């Protein structure tokens, strides 16, 4: 009987945490990472997540080297039951900020000026841009890169490559996209391949919406939505002050006392 109870308890221990993962403390770094990914819920102070030792149990979480980032480290440790699975590093750019830039790159892909890939490089706090090697000296391409840097800041790492996209289903928006060039992982050390591959897949998934090309080279576009930053800015700028009369009303009221 005791053995049966133990077996049930063990089952509960292994199965239940995932049920509560969204509202309770997370078991380890991997659960927290999955939660952030699945819910698109990265805090703004996080610069990225990668494997500490090549596995998925121990993860390094990059945080911004700011007061918010440092407070965030405490926050993360309070969310994770087994804090030995978490290591920290400092990053330069918020992951959310980088993905916002990624979301805004669609028009540059549409120009057909040599931009063929883009992906967040969380360890470098940058966006890796793949430029077709044949366009390396093309003045239009050089001008485009300069314009991107002026628009988004110095967040890009340029790689000239013969990278080619292939699409398993070119007729359907959202079709499976496959990279055919291993250079996509060029900035990622072998020890972090498992997690990096996952991150890359997510990047590609996002790109499916905004950067789809047919096998004939035409681009299928989708409506560009406002980025997260743009939405936040719209909310902030729509804030209003109360009427001028309110202050007088309040001072009249406290003046009665």
């Amino acid at each position, binding site marked *: 009987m005791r053995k049966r109870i133990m077996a049930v308890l063990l089952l509960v221990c292994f199965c239940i945490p995932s049920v509560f993962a969204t509202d309770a403390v997370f078991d380890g770094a991997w659960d927290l990472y999955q939660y952030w990914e699945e819910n698109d819920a990265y805090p703004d102070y996080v610069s990225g997540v990668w494997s500490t030792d090549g596995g998925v149990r121990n993860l390094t979480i990059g945080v911004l080297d700011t007061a918010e980032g440092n407070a965030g480290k405490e926050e993360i440790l309070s969310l994770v039951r087994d804090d030995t699975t978490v290591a920290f590093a400092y990053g330069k750019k918020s992951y959310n900020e980088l993905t916002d830039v990624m979301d805004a790159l669609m028009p540059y892909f549409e120009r057909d000026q040599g931009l063929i890939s883009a992906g967040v490089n969380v360890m470098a706090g940058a966006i890796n841009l793949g430029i077709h090697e044949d366009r390396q000296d093309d003045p239009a391409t050089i001008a485009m890169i300069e314009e991107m840097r002026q628009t988004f800041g110095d967040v890009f790492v340029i790689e000239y490559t013969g990278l080619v996209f292939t699409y398993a289903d070119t007729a359907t928006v959202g079709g499976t996209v496959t990279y055919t060039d291993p250079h996509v992982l060029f900035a990622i050390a072998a020890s972090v391949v498992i997690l990096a591959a996952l991150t890359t897949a997510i990047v590609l998934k996002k790109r499916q919406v905004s950067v789809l090309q047919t096998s004939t080279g035409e681009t299928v576009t989708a409506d560009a939505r406002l980025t997260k930053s743009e939405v*936040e800015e719209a909310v902030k700028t729509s804030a209003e002050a109360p009427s001028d009369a309110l202050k007088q009303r309040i001072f009249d*009221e406290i003046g009665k006392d």
Partner: protein
Amino acid sequence: MDVTELNVCMERLRAGDREAFSCLYDELSRPVYTVARRIVQSREIAEDITQEVFVRLYVSPPPPSIENPRAWIFRMARNLAIDAWRKKQSTDIDDVQLAEADVADAVALRLDTEAAIGHLPAMERQILSLHLDGDMPFREIAPIVGLSLPAVYRRYRKAIKTLQNLL
């Protein structure tokens, strides 16, 4: 106004300094009013709430033991707004929203943004506004709205996604 300046103002307010109160009003009335307005979706009620918050602040300022008076003020504003919003639910909401739209149509973007925010559930409006208008970190918002930190993140991201679709 940073935390130190705010604490200095609070200290002066506790000593009955009306100028300090005026400073606090100038600094915080806009975000307090906006948070209230986002929650109750009414300018008139939001002004009443803002008045209530500042009168209470003057009469009973937070004691020195309150480490974060800013969070204390927004918690009060949020609680008053939630109470008012619940009462407002029993009134004719369509009339209230029409009246607001008349005032708001001067600025198209603002109307669009406000209309879009009005489509969010009350909890998401609170979290969104406390974070963006009240400039509060999520870890301070969680205890105010009574949710866990992950749940606050989730609601916030959901709100942003909804607004991305609406704006």
